[in-house]
């Protein structure tokens, strides 16, 4: 492998935000992403929106996957998106949400800029394919 050959990897932040302590899904998706060849940064449990923003900006991730099973997505996701905008990191970050989200809320989240919402039972392959196809080209 030569010095100037580009060595690009898709970088993802798998984030648990808020008081929800169910991290099995986040762990499984983190491993699946890793096995798909992505570089995964896992946030750990109980993160505040600010912390997620800090991590997403500093790690310069291509994908931000937010796992929420507590039903607080309408409060937390907008805060994260606001923060990303503040640091000019919103435009080229692919934001996806995993968890239990009612259909009405899905539309709202999409309007805010969430690219896709994956509910329980989504095959890993589908999520990985989605990321591969939709990750923003960066110059």
């Amino acid at each position, binding site marked *: 492998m030569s010095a*100037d*050959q580009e*060595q690009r990897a898709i970088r993802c932040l798998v984030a648990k935000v808020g008081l929800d302590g169910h991290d099995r899904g986040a762990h499984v998706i983190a491993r699946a992403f*890793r096995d798909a060849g992505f570089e995964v940064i*896992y946030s750990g449990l109980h993160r505040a929106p600010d912390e997620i923003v800090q991590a997403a900006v500093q*790690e*310069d991730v291509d994908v931000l996957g937010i796992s929420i099973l507590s039903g607080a997505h309408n409060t937390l996701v907008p805060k994260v998106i606001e923060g990303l905008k503040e640091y000019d990191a919103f435009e080229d970050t692919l934001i996806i949400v995993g968890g239990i989200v009612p259909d009405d809320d899905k539309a709202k989240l999409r309007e805010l800029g969430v690219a896709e919402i994956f509910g329980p039972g989504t095959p890993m392959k589908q999520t990985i394919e989605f990321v591969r196809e939709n990750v923003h080209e960066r110059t």
Partner: protein
Amino acid sequence: MSRAAQRELVEELLDGKHRALARVITKIENRSPGYRDVVSALHEHTGDADVIGITGSPGAGKSTLVDKLARTYRDAGLTVGVIAVDPSSPFTGGAVLGDRIRMASNVGDMEVFFRSMSARGQLGGLSTATADAVKALDAFGKDKVIIETVGAGQNEVDIVRTADTVTVLVQPGSGDDVQMLKAGILEIGDVFVVNKADMPSADRTVAELEEMIHMRNDPTANLDLGHHGFEEPEVAVEDEEEENDRWTPQVVKTVAKDGEGVENLVDVLAEHRNYLEETGRLAAKARMRYAEEIRQLLREDTAQLLEAELDRRGGVESYAAAVYDRETDPYTVADELIEPLADCVEERRD
């Protein structure tokens, strides 16, 4: 990326824009087109940061200690950059970079810039990428830059060598580990930290380390010379003055999760930094690093040049097949390929 965009990115980084810093490090990691120009442009703004390397076996508490160190520096009004290097899978290239989880004391504090990097299976390229990322943090204006990596092999040793002060973390009761460390990492440590010092075996580990450091400073101490002992050679006496101001590695006890002993560690790190400055070794070390960096770049660049030439001539496989069939041999092939390059260099020489 256009030249104008590159210049803008550099400008933004120097202006203190976090996004720009993050983006520059990504370019360095990806080796995307133009990253060399960006790093070149940053170079004149570097040289002010104090770079600390931290290494140790998995689970020794590196990330937790880095977190507490960063907090302590922040409390003293200093800004901090952290680069945490984690291994990646040699099969898929994927990685889970988990060091960030431990940065609990610094969440929401943007003045601590924490960046995870993975070893993307680069051949020695990781130390170059790490060194370049350190430059980006340095140019950004970070006072302290901490490089954290698992101490496992030559690659990691190369990485921590880009630091001014190398800290090696050891777990209590890891007598065998200490033995293992002897060969590689023990030699490069300026400061040894026995973390989890609230464990009963901590004192023993401290004693073992101190003994080993003592042995290191006196290479004959461990040898049973008996009556075959030899006179100290003359040269050693000449070096005595230098010997006197040589740094003796310090052993520090910490309990990183409670922050215990971290203040002391900070003092010892500062002490080592002072020592480097006063003896002029800081500059000497930096010059050595740059020399190594130039060599490394040249190696990579010429390798790339040759790789392209090899491809043009039909790839390495055809040569390998010819060698296997005993039509030629590796030395002849290498000579053949390098000849035009050597000729060219000679021609251009003035």
